[in-house]
């Protein structure tokens, strides 16, 4: 049963969780045998951009040792065999250049989404 995870909101509690919870969940279920892929839409297309850093968070006398490493999360998912796609128009609307995209992330136009959806048995929108 092939599964497509559609992620729309970006940076949802990432500083508290030290990751994106849906990327984390996808890695977890892939580890359990689920052939799950990811489609990034809306603000979540930011996850496809290289070179992000969330280091330096300090709150009062506390400082964060392990900030979220979204690029690493995306790369690990790709290395596990997941297909990760991002919507071209959503990237363009946010000024994210195709040149800055993590290697291996596939760019798809909105017109191509229906064809993508047809390849999956289950589609879960987050």
């Amino acid at each position: 049963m092939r599964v497509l995870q559609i992620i729309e909101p970006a940076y949802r509690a990432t500083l508290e969780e030290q990751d994106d919870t849906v990327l984390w969940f996808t890695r977890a279920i892939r580890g359990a045998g689920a052939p799950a892929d990811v489609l990034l839409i809306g603000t979540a297309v930011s996850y496809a951009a290289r070179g992000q850093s969330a280091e330096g968070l300090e709150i009062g006398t506390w400082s964060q040792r392990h900030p979220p490493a979204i690029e690493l999360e995306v790369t690990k998912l790709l290395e596990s065999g997941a297909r990760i796609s991002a919507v071209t128009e959503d990237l363009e609307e946010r000024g994210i250049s195709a040149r800055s995209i993590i290697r291996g992330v596939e760019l798809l136009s909105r017109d191509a989404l229906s064809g993508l959806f047809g390849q999956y048995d289950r589609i879960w929108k987050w």
Partner: protein
Amino acid sequence: MVPAKSLTFLLMDAPYEQTRTATAFRLLDAALRLGFGVRVFAYEGAVSLASTLQKPHANAIHGRSLEEEDHPTPHVWISALVQLAQERGAQFEWVNCGLCVDERGVTEVVSGVRRGSPADFWKMASESDNTLVIPTR
């Protein structure tokens, strides 16, 4: 005695749900560092921010042990703000909405956090130089 300059914040998001939580804590931190007194009214899910029952955990997906993961817990963030305020001699007050606490069973909270009601929020806002409401969406 309320300091000459103080800010009141109303927080509404539960922990581990939204990026707004970390942003709110960064604002609280910045306000203290800029010399403002800080008063917080936690409403609805935000009362759980102060729960000392939050526990850090190991993370097999990250490949880190409990100690290595050093997972953040918002109740520790509140304590860290309390400590910063004490170091700077600044006012820091955190009030949890009492009915919200009862609904959620948030009975064990950071030392110094007290129960209150919307009337407390009104008093805090009235005595502060400005107020920022950060609602859930």
